């Protein structure tokens, strides 16, 4: 079978399709009928698009919580841990004393 033979074969098996006006009308009516069904949403207008853009730029509350929850929990745990430790002021007093002593002797 030659390349031309294949072309002729297909041309004969699939002759030119004549689309009738009623078929065109049926398709368009079908599209509009499906548009009016609730699951097909109308294309959003410009204000809606702007609102959508702004909402995409603003992080959602859930994302904010996800981003901040871990550092906040760690900070809280650290604070609780340090809060539970016994307060020991003695070394600090000694430190202060040693810091101030030379100043006093120098007459300041």
């Amino acid at each position, binding site marked *: *079978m030659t*390349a031309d*033979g*294949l*072309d*002729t*074969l*297909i*041309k*004969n*098996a*699939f*002759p030119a*399709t004549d*689309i009738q006006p009623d*078929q*065109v009308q*049926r*398709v*368009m009516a*079908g*599209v*509009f009928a*499906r*548009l009016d069904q609730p699951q*097909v*949403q*109308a*294309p*959003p*207008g*410009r204000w809606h*698009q702007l609102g959508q853009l702004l909402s995409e730029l603003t992080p959602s509350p859930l994302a904010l919580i996800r981003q901040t929850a871990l550092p906040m929990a760690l900070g809280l745990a650290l604070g609780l841990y340090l809060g539970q430790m016994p307060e020991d002021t003695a070394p600090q007093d000694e430190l202060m004393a040693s810091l101030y002593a030379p100043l006093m002797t120098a007459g300041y």
Partner: protein
Amino acid sequence: MNDSRDDDELLELTAAGDRDAFQLLMERHVKSMLVLAQRVSGNSDDAEELVQDAFLKVWTQAPKWRRDGAAQFSTWLYRVVLNGCLDRRRRPVWTGLDEAAELADSAPGAAQHLAQLQSRAIIQEAMSAIPERQRAALYLHYFSEISAPQAAQVLDITVPAMEALLIRGKRALKKELIRRGVSDLGDMI
């Protein structure tokens, strides 16, 4: 009715919810889409559903259409319909042989029509056996009304690449037809 507005303008209006613009856009393209879908799918019901699906996609995607984009609207629409046809052809829904069996043999020209339906069924079966990309090229080449450069754009390839794909597709199709016992034209029509 003639309208001087181009497809991009109509798409912008469609994006804003203008149904008249959308209808005009459909009127411009529905016929050529039906030609492709009907010849590929083999029946008008499937073709109508495919084209409806494509236009619903136009309605929902219209706000995302970029006027300065490289592709023409018709090219994009052909791509949507072609992909719909290829998806549908993955399912065995083509009923050419069933129709042929039901055809009344007493009608004038019935034998010829029967032979034509059988030929279509064999060709479609052979086409289903070749790689999808080659099949897509053949569908556009044989079943659509577009030029070779536009067909290349639909497949997102260069014109020489489209020509190469067509050559490979025709070769593969011939091989599949021969495998099904078709050696020359006399075997079928």
